[in-house]
């Protein structure tokens, strides 16, 4: 496949791939070629670590990965970076566009800068860390992912969140956790407003422990006692005429 040979040519064969990362320069290589190489069945044997330079805000970088590899992207990425990730660890050394790690299944995705809207949308598992702030709809329809945000999140975050945990070390926008199912939310800063059926809940020891674990996994240095917990009041689980205005 032509795509592989292009990427291979950027891998310096004099270095040990187990030690030195494979290099891919997206100013010379297309996203298609990069993803083809990362999808190869033997990618982890070929190079366990990958370094991607000049991402230039391109879309769909490192999507659909399904291997125990570590990919570092040096710069800003566009929409859907690390979308549907499984197993792999992807780090963005910059800002991420819309839908970073959307529908992620497992593995770790870390954004050193800010993330645009719908970060971690519908993600089923794994850990998404946003060291900066996330915009609107962070964790929308989340289905089991853990999301830790170092800064703030925008409006409608965790909208229809079904499962998983969202940790916000900064402030939230309006309508946090609207129409929430079973996802749990922890916030250290101020909550601008809660969405329909989202309520503050008691912070019990098991929640402090859970939060401490999430912060540690994300490498965040925050004090658990400053956080509050939010969850579903479960009033919208079955239609009742008296709640009609909340739908």
């Amino acid at each position: 496949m032509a795509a592989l040979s292009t990427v291979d040519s950027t891998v310096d064969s004099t270095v040990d791939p187990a030690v030195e990362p494979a290099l891919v320069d997206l100013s010379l290589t297309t996203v298609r070629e990069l993803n083809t190489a990362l999808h190869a069945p033997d990618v982890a044997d070929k190079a366990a670590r990958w370094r991607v330079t000049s991402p230039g805000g391109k879309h769909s970088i490192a999507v659909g990965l399904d291997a125990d590899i570590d990919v570092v992207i040096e710069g800003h990425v566009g929409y859907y970076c690390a979308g549907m990730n499984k197993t792999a660890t992807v780090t963005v050394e910059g800002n991420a566009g819309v839908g970073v790690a959307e529908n992620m299944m497992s593995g770790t995705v870390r954004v050193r800068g800010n993330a645009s809207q719908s970060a971690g949308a519908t993600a089923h598992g794994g850990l998404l860390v946003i060291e900066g702030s996330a915009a609107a709809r962070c964790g929308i329809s989340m289905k089991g992912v853990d999301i830790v945000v170092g800064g703030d999140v925008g409006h409608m975050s965790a909208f229809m969140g079904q499962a998983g945990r969202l940790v916000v070390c900064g402030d939230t926008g309006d309508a946090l956790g609207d129409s929430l199912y079973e996802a749990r939310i922890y916030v250290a800063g101020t909550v601008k407003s809660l969405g329909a059926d989202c309520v503050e809940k008691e912070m019990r020891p098991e929640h402090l422990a859970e939060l401490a674990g999430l912060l540690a996994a994300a490498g965040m240095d925050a004090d658990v006692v400053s956080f509050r917990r939010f969850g579903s009041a479960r009033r919208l689980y079955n239609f009742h005429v008296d709640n009609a205005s909340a739908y």
Partner: protein
Amino acid sequence: MCGIAGLHLREPSLYPRLGELLTGMLCQVTERGPDSAGVAVYGDPRWSPPGESTVSLLPGGVPADDVATALRATLPEAVVVGAGQTLVVHAATDAETLTDAVRTVVPGALVIGAGEDVAVLKGVGHPQALAAEFGLPAAQGWQGVAHTRMATESAVTPAHCHPFSVGTDQCLVHNGSFANHATIRRELTAAGIAFDSDNDSEVGARFVAAQLAAGYDLEKSLKLLCERFDGFYTLLVSTRDSFAVVRDAIACKPAVIAETPQWVAMASEYRALAGLPGVESARIFEPEPEEVYAWQR
């Protein structure tokens, strides 16, 4: 449905680089709107020399030389500059006089911008090719707006391109789709306002121009727009002294703002901002729903 990029320069030493920077931004949002594109440049000495006014027009097939010859009968100093499918006319008179003169000598032309500072350039084609056609990389000035278009419900023609510049030195670009524009168009039409296209975004531009004409400032005008318009929109609106961004209440259409002491920039995606000088230290954020972000010159 489109791509937006805008740059408001605070640092005069960057003015000579406006066109170069704006071209880079425009190229990064090409994929969002490959049908056609338009730009507005504030303060380019070729198009808008100081002390003169400028009118931008789609000449409807009339050659630049014929326009110049006809205009000089009444305005001997008028200069006509070709920029792709657009002509830019400037002369040492006020914008209204120059607009009237253009309309008289080229009755088939569509005036797409007028003022003391702004040149508006539009065309159908690939945005990157259009930027070259416009001569955008060499443009100078203090503020610029670029738009790439993926047409939704109206035709792909230069006249349907953004920016919509319907008031003196004003421009509006839009990403999204208004849901009740037909009614607002009827109301504005009933109030005597004429339209150039059936584009929903022009309704937004005419509405803002009407509020500004009524004496409201840009911020208030955009607040009123939020009250009146349904639908999804990210808007970038500029005037001869301001640069403003607003999104609808749901705020789905993308928008990123970056601010440094040297400039303020707004784009549909980060990638359009990534090449700006000093972006590493910029304050970068996404605008909140229905909040007006405005910067004054």
